[in-house]
């Protein structure tokens, strides 16, 4: 573990902040860090850029973390985990809620490689559509219709020519991942798809066994990014 200083904070809303560190982490999009908020807990967070994490307050630690001040120190282990496989062709990014966090990083990374990147970003309500202008080409959805299409990202996916994309990247809550998995399986597109999973984690380095899926894969090492095919055993 080492510690980094908080350099800058963007408060996107009452419950979501992006926290920038004072130094760059050598990493790839899709990787995560174990972030130790001293006197609270160490939790897994995806990198939202080589310099930052984007966090939503859902419990004790994350609530304290979104209120952190610049100049404070956080402990970091990592970056850990398997990143997304990049493409320089046509990419579709599908984000559900705070699942957008790793996709900000992926978006920039793919753009840099010359890819054509389109984003579908949805939430329960418009307040969940954090930092949406960071995506260049984006379609929005909310379940309550407060912004964009009224419905879910899954509905938006259904209406899309998914075959036209070289790669489809998905991150969001488990229910959404499973729904997306089903659509892609139906359309025989699992080989083009990559899913970023979450799971309760302790060690982050593949020894404690807290994060294993139904097929025995460790989300912290074999994941958090899995190809559609890798998930057949875990999701079916």
């Amino acid at each position, binding site marked *: 573990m080492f*510690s980094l200083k908080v350099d800058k904070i963007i408060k996107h809303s009452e419950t979501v902040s992006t926290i920038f560190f004072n130094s760059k982490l050598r990493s790839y999009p899709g990787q995560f860090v174990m972030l130790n908020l001293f006197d609270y*807990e160490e*939790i897994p967070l995806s990198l939202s850029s080589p310099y930052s994490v984007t966090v939503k307050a859902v419990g004790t630690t994350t609530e304290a973390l979104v209120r952190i001040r610049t100049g404070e120190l956080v*402990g970091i282990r990592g970056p850990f985990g398997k990143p997304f496989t990049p493409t320089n062709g046509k990419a579709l990014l599908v984000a559900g809620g705070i699942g957008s966090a790793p996709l900000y990083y992926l978006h920039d990374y793919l753009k840099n490689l010359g890819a054509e990147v389109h984003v579908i970003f949805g939430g329960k309500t418009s307040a969940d559509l954090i930092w949406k202008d960071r995506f260049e080409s984006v379609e929005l959805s909310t379940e309550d219709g407060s912004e964009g299409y009224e419905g879910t990202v899954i509905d938006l996916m259904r209406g899309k020519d998914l075959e036209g994309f070289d790669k489809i990247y998905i991150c969001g809550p488990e229910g959404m991942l499973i729904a997306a998995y089903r659509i892609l399986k139906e359309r025989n597109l699992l080989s083009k798809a990559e899913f970023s999973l979450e799971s309760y984690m302790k060690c982050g*380095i593949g020894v*404690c066994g*807290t994060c294993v899926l139904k097929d025995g894969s460790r989300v912290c*090492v074999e994941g958090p990014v899995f190809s559609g095919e890798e998930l057949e055993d875990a999701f079916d």
Partner: protein
Amino acid sequence: MLEVQISSLTLQNPLILASGILGSYSSSLNRLSEHAGALVAKSVGIEEREGYRNPVVVNTPHGLLNAVGLSSPGAEKFALELENYRGDAKLIVSLFASNPDEFVEIARYFDMADAFELNLSCPHVKGLGLTVGNDPELVGDIVRRLKKETSRPIFAKISAFSSYIEVAKSAEEAGVDGVVAINTLKGMAIDIGSKKPILSNVSGGYSGEAVKPVAMKVVWDLYEELDIPIIASGGATSWKDVVEFMLAGASAVQIGSAFFYSYRIFYSLKESLKAYARKEKIRLEEIIGLAHKK
């Protein structure tokens, strides 16, 4: 070629998953069972225990520090989980408790166990593990009570920080079927940036490659003193480490922290050990304790 015999258990090879590593769910145990001789599940107590706050496991340059704090869903729930174990490798259930009665009570839940391992050595929980394992008489009592209860083999896992020869002999006299040495060493690390201990519990158990020479010495000493099989645990990472532990007197070798390097480590160790046995033209079992010969 790689088969080893430990008390009444015949293992397809001497590689055993160490307790606390990837052993909380049947899904990971099933996945690991193909290439291992046996698997030790995460230590289980009678009641649910939360364990410590994260961080509970951190990597240091030469090994791991952990203070998981014997988190456990409790015997009843964990037995349900292990019902789903489907592997060929022998399943060893690791128990922690503070007295003989409790050990017996927990053991009763685990019909699917091929053997039991007694955690007498976890260094970071007061009243459990090492606190119990430091007392040779108590260890003898626990073993005697359990032997009456079950015909399955019982292994005592002991610490390098105890009077390990005394403890092991007391267990042997009480009828234990094998000794597992060692558990983690006591250790800690401080983050110099924040000027705070890294583990939430301040200190914890130190494992991984760094502790191998310490474990080797304990295995060596026990082999000189005991007649029952010894199972090594502590730092084994490459096939050479497995061979080294066996030469020192281990009948089998547990693999724990090395899962940091690869999930397929049982497979690669197994294949390397086969190549070694072929080259040396031996059955692997023949090298157990060979370094003691003058």
